[in-house]
């Protein structure tokens, strides 16, 4: 199990580097497909089956296809080597620093005060405000999908509706921006 996770995570990381460093746009896109897929596997391993499916269908499916399609449409042969100027240095330094920082912090549970992982404490405590925290069983029961869906359409109805508006806007915008029109000024 651990090995599997390790492999998936490594693949995700390596393909992410591929996204950034591939000289060809299309390679970046393909690397991204790998990354996204690996992430979906991680989701599955993390017991988020619904998200696993969404990630695969929307990301690895729709979004990446769109990318590839546009790349093919616009510049099939263009080569874009990453610009390794001072910004790259900044980027690399940031990558190293942030990763290590976050890892070490998460690993050691450094807190300014006593105790460890606060989220857990709060979650476990009989905190009256923690209405939507359930036991592990409840969250993970029934393959989790039903729980997520149920919450999505009840408690989180508002954000969910906003996403619909957002998609509508995006669609209209895409149509407007790409529409060829004779109607000149």
């Amino acid at each position, binding site marked *: 199990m651990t090995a599997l996770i390790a492999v998936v995570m490594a693949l995700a990381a390596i393909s992410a580097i591929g996204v950034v460093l591939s000289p060809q746009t299309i390679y970046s896109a393909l690397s991204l497909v790998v990354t996204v897929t690996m992430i979906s596997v991680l989701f599955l391993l993390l017991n988020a089956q619904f998200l696993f499916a969404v990630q695969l269908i929307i990301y690895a499916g729709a979004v990446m296809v769109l990318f590839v399609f546009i790349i093919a449409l616009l510049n099939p042969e263009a080569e874009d080597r990453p*610009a390794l100027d*001072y*910004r790259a240095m*900044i*980027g690399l330094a*940031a990558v190293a*620093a*942030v990763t290590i*920082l976050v890892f070490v912090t998460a690993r050691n549970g450094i807190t*300014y005060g006593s105790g460890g992982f606060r989220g857990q404490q709060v979650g476990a405590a009989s905190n009256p405000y923690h209405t939507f925290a359930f036991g592990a069983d409840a969250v993970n029961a029934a393959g989790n999908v039903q729980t997520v869906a149920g919450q999505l359409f009840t408690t989180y109805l508002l954000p969910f509706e906003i996403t619909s508006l957002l998609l509508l806007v995006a669609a209209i915008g895409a149509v407007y921006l790409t529409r060829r029109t004779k109607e000149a000024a």
Partner: protein
Amino acid sequence: MSVDVASTLVLLILLFPLGGAALNALLGPRLGRQFVNVVGTASILASFVVATLLLANVVGAPSGHSSITVRLWQWLNLGSGNLSVGMDFTLDPLSAIMAMVITGVGFLIHVYSVGYMEHDEGIARFFAYMNFFIFSMLGLVLAGDLVILIIGWALVAFSSYVLIGFWHDRPSAVLAARKAFITQVVGDVAMVIAAFLIFLNAHTLSLPNVFARTAAFPSGGILVTGICVLLAIGAFAKSAQFPLHTWLPDAMEGPTPVSALIHAATMVTAGVYLIARFHPLFNLAPVAEGMVACVGIGTALMAGVIALSQIDIKRVIAYSTMSQIGLMIYAVGIGAYSAGLFHFAMHSVFKALLFMAAGNVIHALRDEQDIRLMGGLSARMRWTQWSFLSGSLALAGIPIFAGWFSKENLLGFGTVSGPGAAPWLLYVVGVGINVLTGLYAFRLWAVVFQGEPQTARVWAAKEARRVMLIPVVMLGVLSLIVAWPLQWPIPNAVRVFTDFLAPVFAAGPPTPAAEPGVGLATVALVIGTLASLFGVGLAQRIWVRGDPEPAALLVRLPRGLPLLSYNKFYFDELYDRALVNPTRAVARTLRRVVEPDIMDGWVSGIGSVLRGLSIDVRSVETGFIRDYASLFAVFAVLFVVITVVFVAR
């Protein structure tokens, strides 16, 4: 004298000239020359009549009631303990005499002006100014409050300023006017500060109260000395005494009647009046008195020396004026107030005469003022010549002429009074001045009227018209006889003048000057008279007879002395170099350097720094998305690190 009478008199005496000035200024240009002449002279005559009434009232007043102060209105009142000034006027023998002389001599000069200014188009303006001057001068001498006195003091300076610059197309006249005014203002400031000292210690500026309260000041103390020195500076500025004397010769740029009225007879003697008026304070300040006496005699000497070598007829008389006022100042400086004032009164008569006679000459020679281009006028201008001679004799102090009475009277006091351990030292100088006076007075007379005519203009010269001649002749006669009934320098003789003023000077702390004893007085009189005669005689030898011997004597003087005399001891140059030019240079530096580079510089400096910063800051906006993202990322990491690592601890 009741208050009602007094205030009526004060109002009238002031209103006549003021009304004349206003009428002439506003209506004069429309209504013509005749109107102006009448209004201008009549107003002064009216004022003279009032002044005579005033004098009569004072004379008739029982002793001890000869001084009265009237308040026309409250000028300013800033609350108890603070500045409170009334529009006050004081009537007493002193102011009565002053008013009398001012209006009397003033009237004659006004009459003379009618002729002198006949062809001048600005006649209305001229008479307006002249009337206004009389008003101001009367305001000065009648003032019963120090602030009012200062106002009058400044108003006469203003009148003098406009009259010196009367011919305003002449740049030299304009400059002279300004110089006179600025010098006066220096004196004004000194007086104002003296007023502050008085106010802060006596808590009043009303003159009677001031004198009442300052009597308690410690005699010889620094306070009273300071006040007196400051007042004296004011007096020096007005009376053209060293070191504030340089404006007076330049003031001759004005029309001759102005010189006669203002720069000889009245205004310039205001310094003498001031010191006499403040005698209660000066009596307490021997050091200040000594200073005044020294400055007076020193100026008299210096002016006498300068007068010897001047070539402008009016300037010679101007320096003679300066010299004579020096003597008056000397007199009041040693405490001989009535002697000083008597000389003032006499001087105003003969000096007005001299100026007006000189004016006749100038007029006849069509504005020629250089005495080297004159000569031989005695035949052509007989009346003027005789009058001038009378004035010169009076000036030189030849017996039975007015000047003899007053000057010898004055010098007599010098034998016993004076500053320091050897008071007679100044007296000796005074006697020397007698010689000098005779010399320059008769040099002038000789060069102008005797000898051969030097230019064609002189050949064409005619006697002056009657309107100009009558005042001159009248004054010529007066120069001879005016002093006879008033005051004799001989002890125990006539002393009407002194007695009349006695109540004024009897008040307050005792006057230091002692009357010289009979013997001493007689000796002094003889010596002084001989000195005067010697001077006149010497002048006769040199300039009339052309005797080379004394001339050779003069040549043997140190080289520099004639030069110094001719160049007026270089005071103008000294002031230019020491005061005027440095001030100008400072001002120029301020405009060229300080204002733009420092005062504005610190603003524009901030401006340019900000401008530079602005360009630096804007250079972040490269337009490159990747640059923007870099900046974003760097600061995001930085902020997180700062928060997590530094702030949290």
